[in-house]
């Protein structure tokens, strides 16, 4: 395990920085706010009792407004046998300048009524394409996925959301929009695609909450060769 000053272009700093990205999305992400790691400037790691502590200086980018901000973050990866999530603290300057309130509110009002439940699948599709109306649901899926990605991360993982396989809107409850999501996560080190089903709620006030998560089994049976003549 690398300890001391970290090379910003080497994997330990980058994996830790991605965990910070997941954390920021769980805190600040929404259908109209999606944060992505832009650059690692510097970092350090140290061993502490049963834990590994990282300190990082980063640039993060809000992808919809294209606004970048500098962030300082501290992470604790728990050691030992337990499967507990890393703990993250981060403060950013300038990152949250964009004000998506109007768009969020319009989106919320549009989908709040029960007469038109929305659903979608394969976002993005095989060609990387998605309908503009699906984009906020893609971001929402990404933010919800960030909760899982944060929880599942350790020093040997690097998670990204590969695709929203499908989502279905459920009845609005307690003023929260509600959705079932099926997401595909890509874990870079193992190269695995991991399927999760999530029950997600969102409102402009309450933000994104993931109420239930269910890991889907890897589908071994659906791997037999089809009749492909292509």
């Amino acid at each position, binding site marked *: 395990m690398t300890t001391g000053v970290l*090379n910003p272009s080497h994997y330990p700093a980058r994996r830790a920085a991605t965990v910070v990205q997941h954390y920021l999305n769980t805190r600040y992400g929404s259908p109209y706010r999606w944060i992505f790691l832009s650059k690692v400037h510097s970092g350090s790691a140290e061993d502490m009792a049963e834990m590994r502590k990282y300190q990082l200086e980063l640039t993060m980018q809000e992808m919809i407004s294209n606004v970048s901000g500098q962030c300082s973050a501290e992470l604790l990866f728990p050691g030992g046998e337990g499967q507990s999530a890393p703990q993250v603290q981060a403060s950013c300057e300038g990152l949250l300048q964009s004000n998506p309130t109007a768009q969020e509110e319009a989106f919320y009002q549009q989908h709040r009524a029960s007469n038109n439940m929305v659903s979608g*699948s394969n976002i993005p599709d095989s060609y990387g394409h998605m309908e503009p109306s699906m984009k906020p649901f893609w971001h929402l899926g990404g933010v919800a996925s960030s909760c899982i990605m944060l929880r599942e991360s350790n020093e040997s993982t690097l998670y990204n959301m590969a695709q929203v396989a499908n989502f279905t809107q459920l009845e609005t409850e307690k003023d929260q929009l509600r959705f079932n999501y099926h997401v595909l996560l890509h874990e870079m080190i193992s*190269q695995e695609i991991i399927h999760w089903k999530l029950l997600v709620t969102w409102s402009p006030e309450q933000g994104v909450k993931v109420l239930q998560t269910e890991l889907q089994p890897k589908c071994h049976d659906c*791997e037999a060769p*089809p009749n*492909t003549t*292509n």
Partner: protein
Amino acid sequence: MCVSMYSAVWSREETTERNYYTRYHNMSEITAWMEQMKRENPDVVSSMVYGQTYERRNITLLKIGLSSTGRKKAIWMDCGIHAREWIAPAFCQYFVREILRTYKTDTKVNEMMKNLDFYITPVLNVDGYIYSWHNESTRLWRKSRSPGTGGCTCYGTDINRNFYANWGMVGVSTDCCSQTYCGTKALSESEARAVTDMLGKMREDILAFLTIHSYGQLLLVPYGHPNISAPNYDELMEVGLAAATAIKAVHGMDYTVGTSPDVLYANSGSSRDFARLIGIPLSFTFELRDKGEHGFELPEDQIQPTCEEAYAGAHHIITYAHDKAFYSYAATVTATLWTTLLAAWVSSAILLTIICLYKKVK
């Protein structure tokens, strides 16, 4: 699938259109395109079938260069060793089109086409690529399509863990269901054997080996094992960093350069490592766009900018390799000549001085 059928109908007229290179193409379109490249450029393009996939499909490369009587040096490029990395075959197609488009007017490309042959495999893992086009649920397939053995019911071996280069040592799985399954033994996969055999025949001639992947925006140098360094690590890093600078100049994108264990993860059995091990001096893995936002499903409107920047990077490496082979020999000869002349001058100057002194003394 409606979209791919639409593409197939258009492809025949459109293969020369600029539009063609801004879309992803299925295997039959790429095969037709290879035929078209040969047809339209018969004096510089030929093809070679150099192996068979598990499902008995041809593995085909395009050999591109101005014909010459002697034996030529070579550049190797392969794309699509991992099925889901669709931007990679798109780049191989772009690269071919670009050198064919510019070799008559660009003096450097022309010179390189005279002195080198480009061996370009647009899709190495043909079975996997075709499978990834089957439907949405197969889009993220990575490996070959050989069946599991010994009671394991999953399909596929990671071809880029299957080469005879520290095979099975690190960054692999022995579970045949895993995405980094390295196979029952090195070169269990016919795709890996095909490349191995070709490289074996050509190894003295290949100046650079480029293998194209996605995603991550990285240029990886050998080796994948954390305890083994390439003998020319410094050179590889210097060339790689300069290539990354060239990439960034195009659209501002950052590509990180380093060994796989430093910047990504340790691994063994890769084609890049095998190429370096058999003596090919400049061996690089390109990991193209993006950094995870779309990942493998890179939007088609990013194909062109990705290919433009990757071309700049590849062009830098290839030019370096070419110039090192064809200019440093001349530079060495010239340096030797000057050294000889200087030595002759110095010794004649000394001789004259001695004669003068002798005369004076006398």
